């Protein structure tokens, strides 16, 4: 996992549900690159043309609410997004994103706007908008999530550990 991420912000509002991230009609596939072609289609049809590898999705509260479909974080990952920042997440989506090895952090996203250049420093736990001299702290992940993310996702974590190990 990259510890220093630099890209452009794509800003979303509150309560972006997983149906909006990837509609149910596209979810029945194991060809994950097809998911990226429809990501955010119902709320931001231009997103898929605008997004560049390394970019960051920034959202309001309750990001990823609704369905448990892991196709949602997978679609975001295959679109090339390198990190997700939100004021809060729906529980299942949050786990799914970390399980997919996508850095997903909680922080205040109010200042972020689509097109802003952003740096996410995971080691030192902050995001920065260099163009506007704004530095925003990230809420630390739970220790078990940190370990899963460090392995690059749950599959790699379980391949290595064989089971779940709760950090003391």
């Amino acid at each position: 996992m990259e510890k220093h991420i630099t890209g452009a912000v794509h800003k979303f509002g509150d309560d972006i549900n997983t149906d909006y991230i990837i509609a149910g009609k596209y979810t029945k596939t194991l060809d994950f690159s097809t998911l990226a072609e429809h990501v955010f289609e119902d709320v931001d049809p231009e997103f898929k043309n605008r997004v560049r590898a390394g970019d960051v999705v920034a959202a309001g509260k309750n990001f990823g609410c609704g369905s448990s479909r892991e196709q949602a974080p997978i679609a975001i990952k295959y679109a090339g997004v390198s990190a997700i920042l939100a004021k809060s997440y729906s529980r299942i989506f949050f786990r799914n994103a970390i399980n997919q090895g996508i850095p997903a952090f909680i922080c205040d996203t109010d200042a972020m706007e689509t097109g802003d250049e952003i740096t996410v420093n995971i080691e030192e736990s902050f995001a920065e908008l260099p163009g506007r001299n704004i530095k925003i702290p990230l809420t630390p992940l739970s220790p078990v999530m940190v370990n899963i993310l460090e392995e690059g996702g749950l599959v790699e974590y379980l391949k290595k550990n064989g089971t779940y190990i709760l950090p003391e």
Partner: protein
Amino acid sequence: MGRTAAEKIISAKAGVDARAGDFVVACADLAMIHDTTGPIAIKAFSEYGREKVWDPSKMVIVLDHATPSPNERISNLHMLLREFAARQGITLFDAGEGVCHQLVVEKGLVLPGGLAVGADSHTCTYGAMGVFAFGIGSTDMSGVMLTGKLWLRVPGTMKVIFRGGMPEGVSSKDLMLNFIGKIGADGADYLALSFSGDTVKAMSLSERMTLSNMAIECGAKAGLVASDEKTAAHLKALGKGEGSPAYDDDDAVFDRVLEIDASKVPPQVALPHSVDSAVPVTEAAGTEVSQVYIGTCTNGRLDDLRIAARILSGRKVSPNCRLLVCPPSRKIMADAIAEGILLQLVEAGAAILPPGCGPCPGTHLGVPGDGENVISTANRNFKGRMGNNKAGVYLASPATCAASALEGRITDPRPFLQGR
């Protein structure tokens, strides 16, 4: 200090004294996957290089989200799931058996006090039987398939007490839409809901399932109803044991306690495109609808079909409107046939769909056209949910949906029940 039912169940499954906020590793009594989430779970599981899942007798696979298959792509995923089930010795419910959550409760596949995970957000439905049940993603599921366990943070509990009798024409769906409207789409994020009060006590298991089913729509991890003699009777009829029921202690610590007077809640309608936008039916009345859907794991059961038939029998669905009815299991369909309900619905103008999710997830069957409005008994009305982002979906009870089908407009069901 007392403990909540959620804390008790998780403690038992994790083998530690777990309190809200603790991180634990807990064992699962049941793991469910279906045709949307299952293939990714199996793909992830295959990466571990392990032949067999931890315990095939504790897994179930349901083909329900796109059944019968609408195209070759989905047919191939169905084949993958059937082959996996056969190879592993896992029970598979094929097309036409019904919706996953309905089948788990109907067949008593997990008992009160148990812990169930499903790769579907509405897994919380089993909370109606006193099961701590919640939805997880496909990769988390692959971890359960490997180890039989998963890590979790023990949730705090929001106690929701419904008191008083529901007036005629009002159902548990209306209570839940009203409740979610009050607390918002993230009002119970990371919490377990615990439903109680004399209103809930008086409800059938089916009505309780509607409450638990919609817990996720306000972000809750679980929606528990204490098991009682109704739960026990259901399990006894199936030849199953009573499980190990868990109850909230009176002196348990609750994050929030909410009391709602059920006698004062009128029929509700959630407006497009969010579940937490409920208004009294009188405020939405008159809005034209081109399609009415009665079905889903939320509200397609026998009592739901019964009240729809009470309103529709001897009357005709509006010529401006299509009525789709989808019993969520083969058993419900058979019972509705035996009771004569399906005949009444068909004679009123309903199209009956094969047991399964039907039009709910927007994959096939009953996709609305551009600009059309649908009123549905489902639990979700996000933009595009039924397959077209240019359509509007309203959510309501089976009674309100049935009355709306008669008029081709959103309609208060109460006058249509008088004298019937």
